[in-house]
């Protein structure tokens, strides 16, 4: 999976936000807020973690106390939230 073109993430004082720029704004118009771990997952996809397995591994590496089951649940929630910004 990868992030569709035109979506950008930005860290502001009020938190992480994802917005569309350019042509992507025609199809999706809105602002997504991400928490720290959501931003981490977003960044991981951008950095090349292109499968569920890689993303879960990235989460387990980063968050020591995280177990496999919670990681999968968190990932599903994240992917649901950003579905329109991610393509296969």
């Amino acid at each position, binding site marked *: 999976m990868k992030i569709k073109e035109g979506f950008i993430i*930005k860290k502001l*004082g*009020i938190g992480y936000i994802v917005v569309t720029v350019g042509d992507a704004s025609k199809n999706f*118009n*809105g602002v997504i807020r991400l928490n720290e771990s959501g931003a981490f997952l977003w960044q991981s996809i951008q950095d090349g973690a292109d499968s569920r397995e890689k993303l879960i591994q990235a989460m387990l590496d980063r968050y020591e106390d995280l177990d496999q089951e919670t990681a999968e649940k968190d990932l599903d929630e994240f992917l649901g939230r950003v579905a329109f910004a991610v393509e296969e």
Partner: protein
Amino acid sequence: MFRIEIAGLVIRIENRYGYVHDLCREYIIEDFSDSSAAFSADDYGQKDTTQAAGTILTADTAECNLRLADISISVSEKEIRQEREKAPDSIFSDAYAEGVVTYEKISNALPAFDAFVMHASVVAVDGQAYAFAAKSGTGKSTHTRYWQEVLGERVAVINGDKPVCRFRGDQLIAYGTPWCGKENWQTRTSAPLKALCLLERGEENSIFPVQASEHLGELMQHFHLQGGQVDLLKMMELIDRMAQTVPMYRLRCRNDSSAAEVAADYFGI
């Protein structure tokens, strides 16, 4: 066609109907629609800047008279039709729809000038502005009325519904605009925003500081972020800057004027 000044910006409006012209009356700095107007668009270059001598001008207005326009607005028949289709059963006229679309276009153009429309009621007391934001129907108009009851003539409502806010230096200033909601509360004035209060109904009155980052979802509802025409990244940067500039509070209110007393007392008014 006429030019208005809002928030130190010159806005040129090419109108089809008289409604938007009449709505903006107090804000007009140059009027080409009136046959008695001294100047037409063509001889703008020779415009005598002493024209307005005798009227009281703010520094912003005086400066704006020298510029043609920061923002130019015209609304097409198609846009008027589209606006009316959003509420097919409403009694609004084409003329009214033109007014609505005009302000939407102004809203979309403002971020480029470090300015934005905020959905809130803003009052000025002793030269400081206080904003009350709430979901429609939660009572920001009612709360504004309580401030007027408690503080009387010390209160000027800058705008009861949709003021323009603009960063000037390190301050965020709230400005009156002609578009102001059904109570028709607006004053052609401005004041630096001292507080943004997120209103909520409660059993008891209380007010306490909150962090914008913890109420971002609620906060974002008070800005114009839809429609596909607004620069979302710029808007979010402005909201972020506002969060750093203007302290934010949760204001829980009972449904009587004691809420205004508690808030005014908290702000040392």
